[in-house]
């Protein structure tokens, strides 16, 4: 039988008040141009129309804020990109044993950690 971890996490989840604005912001963040939205329970799943492996989820009435780890091939590049998109950088890129990481918050307080995984051995 498969272990739970093998089920995997499909999309990062963010709390959103105004989903129209949030769709624009996060689509830009993930570089999604042609998106499809699917209503599911309290959530709105936004995914790339062509590549099904790229997307995110917005939750309207979530009691908790989200804390998402996003991996990137270049933390510095994406840190500047997020800053330019209006995200507030609460921790500039720092070296960790996993790699280079920076921390952001959006207007609602959703936390995003950008992680560029690095092999130090």
């Amino acid at each position, binding site marked *: 039988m498969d272990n739970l971890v093998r089920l995997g996490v499909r999309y990062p989840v963010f709390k959103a008040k105004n989903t129209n604005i949030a769709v624009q912001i996060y689509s830009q963040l993930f570089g999604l141009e042609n998106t499809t939205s699917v209503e599911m329970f309290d959530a709105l799943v936004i995914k790339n129309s062509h590549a099904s492996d790229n997307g995110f989820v917005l939750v309207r009435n979530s009691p908790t804020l989200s804390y998402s780890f996003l991996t990137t091939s*270049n933390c*510095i*590049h994406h840190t*500047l990109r997020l800053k330019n998109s209006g995200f507030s950088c609460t921790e500039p*890129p720092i*070296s960790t044993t996993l790699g*280079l990481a920076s921390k952001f918050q959006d207007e609602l307080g959703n936390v995003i950690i950008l992680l*560029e995984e*690095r092999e*130090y051995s």
Partner: protein
Amino acid sequence: MKQVRVLETNSALMSHVITDEGYQETISGFSIHTVFNGNKEYLLGRRNVTIYPGDFLVLNNGSSRSGTFDSKSPVNAFSIQFNPGFLSDYRSVLVNRTEKLLDNLDLRKDGQQWCPENIYPFKGDMKYNIMHLKNYMDNELEDDLLLQEHLFRCLIDFSKVYHNEVLMKAEKLKFSSLSTRKEVYRRLAIARDYILSNYNKALTLSEIANAACLSVNHLLRTFKDAFNQTPFQFLTRIRLERAQFMLKTSSSSVRNISMEVGFGCSSAFIRAYKRTYSTTPTELLRA
């Protein structure tokens, strides 16, 4: 072929494919140099140092240096030349408290020497950062702000390398006087550079000691204190690392590689390789 990108701060990035065997260049200013294949030789005062993939060389501001290369195949080289003002700005950010950063702006015009001109290991964050910069150069990225951010990170990463490779290792030397520790470490670093530059030749201890202006006994004792291995163990490790790089990147036979990295015979190379990596060079080639 040489690509040069000069940023607004007058720092410059240079990506270089050197094909001319008699190539020469003059370098000035604080700069970082690395190669991704082959090797490149630099004349620093009276000593020659050669960098190979896996190393980077730091040169200080102040005097000119010349570089040549003697590889049979084209050498892919990359260097960063820092503007003295950018460098002083970085130093001022590190040294001063936030409220003092707008004071003493004249300090930023200098370009003081601030680290020993030595070969350092090209790994960790420094490697990732320079690879990103090279990637930007190859893709002709125009974003000055992003490039400068990476240059700033390069200096932070180099400070970490400097702390680990210089300060921590000098601290291990058993001398009570700070100035003696600094001087002995400076000579040991020259010995280490000599081994790194000439690892593929038949080196003797007296030759290494002579290059570093130390006696053989003094070299043996202090090298082990600073680097946790004897000069011979260090030489063997470098030969094996370079051999491993060649096994992964070239089509040469195990026998040829063992000769190229300075092992007298291939059986000694295979034994040393197996002892270190728990596999044979042939098994690595097959994988």
